[in-house]
């Protein structure tokens, strides 16, 4: 039924469904791994599935380092898998040259998922000129990720809500109130310089065809709705092609209608595992087991919170019923503690866990599988917020901070708002409530007369946050997971750093995120520690070596900074050398903004 396109992959002619991702094309062809790592030459394929981990890089039409999980195939694409470095010493590749675009607006929104879209529409409703910058190629974010093959929403939840939201979004685009910029990798968010009256944020992005151009947006207020990604835990064999984040299996299905494999083990903790398993089973995969590390009966200990969000209960019950219909066994207080295979996943070892999460000896079982979809919760993407000076705090996992936000979703930086998973993991309904509040508040910040958010939305946000807190309490990452990896297990996928090397660095005196990074390189690679950061923090907290130094006081918390939230070609970064002196930029933007205003005010 779907239209087919012809592409060339490593010299072979492939015919694949139009609009699916390159990762989905490989997966559908039964080739779960395509990149070879630089140091060990190991095969890698899709891992995070949403553009965070950089494990799936391919060269497309001469451009190296393209994320196969994000890029959709286009007719005639010439794709080659990468071996070692993603850099092609090929003089024929054109230099990035197009003129930079600098746009000004009232409110910039980073991210086009449930929170970002809702915020953009709310701000546009209030009369703001809005620009939406998003890494993806279509609006919807990861939750509503879609493509030509899935536009009917059959793999989605809340599709009617999305359709309604998109209609409003598209209407504002048609009316010129919203400018939508897909394929924009925002790498930094500069707050307004201090002590200037006409303040503007500057949003910097890598943009254009296969990420070669630079784009910049000046905005009076910014809403950051960059979402979250799955927390994966390093277990023996987790770098094998076929082992991926639960969200990656989900995104293959949602974006491309491709099942990640034939025999799937879904493992981890949290209610998100259920829809992943149901989706895969409905799409025709055999779900061998759902392996849940927590003990969901613990929900009964939190009746007050459950009452506040009663709607969630029948939803979970519905998933369980459907799993039963597909004869999917659910193993509770179990974990997938190892993955095995020769060049690709062949089997998964599951074991029962004791009270703290260590495997109970003698309970190991081997399940034949070609996919392990794992997720132990989510890590908010707060790099842009942190680098812009917004205060971050705690979070559900080690080294997974969230943005501190006030009742109006404003961070500690005036004019900078955060909505959705960046303020704490809570799901799409909460993200939409926060987006609604943030969009209105941003409009008010830039001087638009806007009504406060409906009380129902504010109540909804409070109820959903209570529910999220219960979910986190019931589905903690089992602390004993640090017993699952072995010394030769890779912890940092990018730099191929094993647990043994972390131990060696600890023996040299490394005791916090920064010092272990400096001595053993976890977090130094493409993903800048997004994937290994939380596990490394947990391993450090659990103790990696005998004490080699007497210590007083506590190691610094996380402390990892990621000043570039996305990789930036030096030719693009070089554009920033022409940035004016901050004060001059402000003066210019004030004039321009004054000039641009009446246009929008006319619509009020």
């Amino acid at each position, binding site marked *: 039924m779907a239209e087919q396109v012809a592409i060339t992959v490593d010299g072979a002619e492939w015919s694949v469904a139009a609009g699916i991702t390159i990762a989905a094309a490989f997966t559908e062809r039964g080739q779960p791994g395509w990149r070879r790592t630089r140091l060990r030459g190991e095969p890698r394929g899709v891992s995070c599935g949403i553009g965070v981990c950089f494990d799936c890089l391919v060269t497309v039409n001469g451009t190296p380092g393209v994320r196969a999980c994000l890029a959709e195939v286009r007719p005639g694409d010439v794709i080659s898998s990468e071996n070692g470095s993603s850099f092609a010493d090929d003089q024929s590749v054109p*230099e*990035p040259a197009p003129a930079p675009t600098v746009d000004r607006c009232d409110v910039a929104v980073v991210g086009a998922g449930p929170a970002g879209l809702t915020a953009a529409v709310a701000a546009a409703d209030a009369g703001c000129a809005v620009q939406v910058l998003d890494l993806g190629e279509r609006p919807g974010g990861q939750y509503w990720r879609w493509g030509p093959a899935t536009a009917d929403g059959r793999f989605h939840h809340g599709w009617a809500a999305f359709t309604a939201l998109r209609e409003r979004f598209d209407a504002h685009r048609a009316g010129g109130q919203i400018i939508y910029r897909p394929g924009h990798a925002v790498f930094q968010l500069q707050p307004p310089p201090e002590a200037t009256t006409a303040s503007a944020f500057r949003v910097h992005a890598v943009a254009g065809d296969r990420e070669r151009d630079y784009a910049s947006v000046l905005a009076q207020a910014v809403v950051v709705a960059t979402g979250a990604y799955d927390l994966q835990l390093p277990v023996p064999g987790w770098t094998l092609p076929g082992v991926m984040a639960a969200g990656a299996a989900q995104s293959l299905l949602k974006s491309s209608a491709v099942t990640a494999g034939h025999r799937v083990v879904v493992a981890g903790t949290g209610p998100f595992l259920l829809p992943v398993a149901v989706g895969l089973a409905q799409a025709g995969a055999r779900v061998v087991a759902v392996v849940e590390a927590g003990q969901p009966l613990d929900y009964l200990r939190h009746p007050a919170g459950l009452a506040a969000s009663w709607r969630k209960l029948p939803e979970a019950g519905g998933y369980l019923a459907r799993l039963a219909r597909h004869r999917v066994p659910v193993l509770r207080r179990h974990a997938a503690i190892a993955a095995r295979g020769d060049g690709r996943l062949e089997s998964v070892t599951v074991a029962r866990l004791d009270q703290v999460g260590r495997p109970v000896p003698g309970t190991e079982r081997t399940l034949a599988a070609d996919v392990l979809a794992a997720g132990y919760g989510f890590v908010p993407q707060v790099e842009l917020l942190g680098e812009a000076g917004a205060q971050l705090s705690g979070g559900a996992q080690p080294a997974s901070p969230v943005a501190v936000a006030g009742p109006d979703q404003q961070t500690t930086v005036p004019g900078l708002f955060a909505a959705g998973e960046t303020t704490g993991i809570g799901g799409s309904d909460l993200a939409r409530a926060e987006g609604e509040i943030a969009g209105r508040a941003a409009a008010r910040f830039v001087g638009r007369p806007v009504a406060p958010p409906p009380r129902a939305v504010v109540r909804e946000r409070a109820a959903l946050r209570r529910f999220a807190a219960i979910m986190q309490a019931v589905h903690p990452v089992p602390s004993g997971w640090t017993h699952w990896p072995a010394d030769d297990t890779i912890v940092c996928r990018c730099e191929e750093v094993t647990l043994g090397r972390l131990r060696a660095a600890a023996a040299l005196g490394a005791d916090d995120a920064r010092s272990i990074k400096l001595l053993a390189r976890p977090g130094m690679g493409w993903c800048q520690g997004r994937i290994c950061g939380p596990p490394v923090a947990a391993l450090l907290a659990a103790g990696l070596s005998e004490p080699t130094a007497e210590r007083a006081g506590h190691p610094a918390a996380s402390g990892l900074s990621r000043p570039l939230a996305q990789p930036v070609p030096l030719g693009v970064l070089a554009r920033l*050398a022409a940035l004016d002196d901050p004060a001059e930029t402000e003066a210019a933007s004030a004039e321009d903004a004054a000039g641009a205003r009446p246009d929008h005010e006319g619509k009020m």
Partner: protein
Amino acid sequence: MTPARSRDSRDSFDAVVIGAGIVGAACAYYLARAGLRVAVADRGAVASGTTGAGEGNILISDKEPGPELALAQLSQRLWRELGDELGPGAELDPKGGLVVAAGPAEHAGLREFAAAQAQAGVTAQAVPPGELPGLEPHLASGLAGGVFYPEDMQVQPMMAAALLLRRARDLGAELRLRHEVTGFETAAGRVTGVRTSAGLLSTGLAVNAAGTWAGQIAERAGLSLPVLPRRGFIVVTEALPVLIRHKVYTADYVANVASGSAGLEVSTVIEGTASGTVLIGASRERVGFDRSSSLRIVGMLAAQAARLFPVLARARAIRFYRGFRPYCPDHLPVIGADDRLAGLMHACGHEGAGVGLAPATGQLIAQLAAGQEPSLPVDPFRPGRFAEAVYG
């Protein structure tokens, strides 16, 4: 950690080194090798200050003849010994340095500088433009030539510091991390102990190797020491195949290093590392301990790098970081006893050359502590020179 315990003999040392960066590690190593019972105290972790924000340069090429060059040459010899002792983890790489000139006048200046260095025993080879591609195939065309310094080396600075500290520990030294030095105990005008956030370390010798923060440590002894921060940014690329073989920098680097300007100076310094990344520097500005990002400076570094190596325009930067070089008004480090307080020595103020100059600094400190004749004259580095400059 209790007050009572701080009187234990286990908290009594022949020397307490303040700072677990590369200079403190070298001081601890040479002091321990001389048979002293040493403690190293740092408010953070190993290499958590400027050492962890550097490139690991061991350079002869950028030093004009004089006391700093002599110190660098001594350090060069010591680094070669240490390379064997510390093992491959330190990633000591005698790769050589290449200084390039854009125009003929600049090239003439470079050659003149090199001729003076050669008088002082430096190996420097003039490179005509036609031979540049042989040394660096990806270098931009149209350069006027360069000078090659085969003695320049690079080391992984954090690992080098950590391995030096491990060797020191093997020799009996103790590491006290997250011990912030809060002051000094004195009796009859002599140091008798170093106070830390976790108790007193009794000692008759304190070595201030606190790098950019050494002035603050001196202040805690009631003394002034003009060590100031000079901020620099480094841009790091994705891991690349070997594109750049040597440390390559432009002629203006030497002028900027020696400059006393507070304003922004940006020269081009590029080198690969054992892990495949390419490090791109170097900016210098005196803005205190301002940790904020300057995308404009980062952009300037990227633009210059792509000009010198056009192939890098397509390479992706994956991070940048900033560090604070410990800078003294006369650009010389401070090494030796402080006349104002017996038992206090300084080993700091190496600006951007701390990694290169660390072993010589450590050896001189150990020799001075033992009352031995130092390997080279330390008079130019003496801490008292700043006071003289003010009153003289």
